[in-house]
């Protein structure tokens, strides 16, 4: 398990260096063209990147959680969710309990964030929380916890910042380049004989400015997709029950709602792509996530719950091609899928009960006071309500606030 984390880190580092090289090339061409000095361009590019990275490193998780309007919950707010997260924390051997957030959104999605395993957070939308039964919830949370455990979260955050810097510089660079050459007001070089060379640099720079963001995005997507497969495999290993995640993904796949608070840069953080379209092809290069149907098929084809089984299932679905899990971690023997489930789960709440439960939590988190009337109606008292007594609109009984 540790070998696979390490080997994945190496692979990701190589890809990240590729992106870094793109950034440096952009800085080089920008500098060459605007300041007649490649060095100045490099300094600007790296400065922009360092500033964005520092902000991302220290503020990234709180920014992301604030942007998605996530609300932090305590154990008593939603015992079942808290317990499931704690179970997965134990199964993965994570040392510290991650913070749990709920996003008040009917769309179905979840993500993990935090720069290291000791400072991690897991967020889930209220829609997903009420849609999933316990096994499925466990699968989703296991997937998110493995992102934390495999240290994908920081890597993906840093990669998305690198990508953002490249896109930003290329966008402004190409605009200046185009308008600069049209009006002819570009700073001319000191020597007169450089006309030919200037045009060549202009063309090369322009082509590069257009290609760099696309290339960076492809690299980014490649990193992201590998990580998704690995997180699925780890989730199966932690829960010993791949069907849980498979059936959760099935529910996620049939939903059509898009998450309001997601954007392109944060997309890879989520369990499924928040901007997905239906009928995506398996070979789609421009996606942060593998197609859901494919992930489900792999999970369902697993004969056991180990990485080895995931790898075999992956090959069954794909027929050839390179695997998703590095060979070093495949030595482990087959792990059987759990068949032991407590009878206690028989009385698990159904979807309507879960929906009520979740809406109770959301009202409470918005500081609303809930009074249950004897007639069965629930009165939601807003925090600004001043009267000492409230009357039930359904049966007319009065209640103390």
């Amino acid at each position, binding site marked *: *398990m540790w070998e696979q984390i390490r080997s994945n880190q190496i692979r990701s580092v190589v890809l990240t260096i590729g992106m870094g090289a793109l950034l440096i090339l952009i800085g080089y061409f920008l500098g060459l063209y605007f300041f007649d000095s490649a060095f100045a361009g490099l300094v600007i590019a790296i400065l922009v990147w360092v500033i964005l990275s520092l902000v991302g490193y220290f503020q990234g998780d709180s920014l992301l959680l604030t942007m998605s309007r996530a609300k932090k919950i305590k154990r008593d707010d939603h*015992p*079942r969710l808290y*317990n*499931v997260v*704690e*179970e*997965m924390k*134990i*199964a*993965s*051997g994570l040392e510290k309990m991650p913070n749990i957030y709920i996003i008040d959104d009917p769309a179905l999605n979840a993500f993990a964030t935090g720069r290291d395993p000791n400072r991690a957070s897991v967020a889930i939308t209220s829609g997903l929380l009420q849609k999933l*039964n316990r*096994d*499925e919830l466990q699968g989703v949370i296991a997937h998110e916890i493995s992102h934390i455990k495999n240290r994908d979260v920081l890597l993906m955050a840093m990669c998305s910042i690198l990508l953002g810097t490249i896109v930003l510089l290329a966008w402004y660079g190409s605009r200046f380049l185009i308008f600069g050459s049209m009006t002819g007001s570009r700073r001319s070089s000191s020597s007169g004989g450089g006309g030919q060379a200037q045009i060549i640099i202009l063309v090369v720079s322009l082509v590069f400015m257009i290609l760099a963001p696309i290339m960076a995005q492809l690299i980014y997507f490649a990193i992201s997709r590998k990580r998704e497969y690995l997180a699925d495999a780890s989730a199966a290993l*932690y829960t*010993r029950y791949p069907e849980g995640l498979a*059936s959760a993904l099935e529910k996620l796949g049939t939903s059509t709602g898009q998450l309001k608070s997601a954007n392109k840069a944060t997309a890879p953080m989520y369990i499924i792509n928040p901007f997905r379209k239906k009928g995506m092809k398996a070979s789609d290069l421009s996606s942060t996530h593998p197609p859901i149907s494919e992930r489900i098929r792999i999970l369902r084809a697993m004969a056991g719950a180990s990485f080895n089984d995931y790898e075999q299932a992956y090959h069954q679905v794909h027929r050839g091609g390179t695997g998703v899990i590095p060979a070093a971690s495949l030595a482990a023997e087959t792990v059987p899928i*759990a*068949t*032991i*489930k*407590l*009878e*206690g*789960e*028989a*009385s*698990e709440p*159904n*979807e309507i009960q879960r929906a009520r439960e979740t809406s109770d939590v959301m009202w409470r988190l918005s500081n609303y006071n809930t009074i249950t009337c004897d007639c069965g109606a629930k009165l939601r008292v807003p925090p600004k309500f001043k009267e000492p007594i409230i009357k039930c609109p359904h049966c007319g009984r009065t209640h103390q606030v």
Partner: protein
Amino acid sequence: MLAGIIIGIIVGVLLIIFLIIYNGLVRRRNQVKNAWAQIDVQLKRRYDLIPNLVETAKGYMKHERETLESVTKARNLAQQASSAGAGERAKAEGELSSVLSHLLAVVENYPDLKANQNFLALQEELASTENKISFSRQYYNDSVLRYNNQTQMFPSNIVASMTGFKASEFFEVTLAAEREAPKVSFSQ
């Protein structure tokens, strides 16, 4: 002179390799200890939950005195075995797990009890604690496997035997009943 330098370098390299392996062994052993502590926490939590559960269920389950008593008895036995080794303890805890799952199955016949909010909360806690026990056991056994592999495989076994690292015991539940229990899914 040259021979002396070469021997010195070889000894230095061997010493560094020795230290790296030794530190690796210590890390693995600590991981096993931590994992064991994790199981312990969850088992203790179960001891605390059972009396509450039995107390709440008592009023509703007049005809199940035997079941309730067997749960209490198994709990006390397991608590007594908690200072024993992993093997013996696992047996007592496995026994407790199986009487508990029997109790929770019987509860299905008592709709009044199932409607009790307090009981539902306890049941969720207990079910989750059961899960946590099996997940911490799973993690413990994985850690033990990795640690034992390292104490037995070349070249780390040399360092292990020199510095007194012994293989750890697995936490196995050998109850046939638990092994054969089918997967129950009541979704929707």
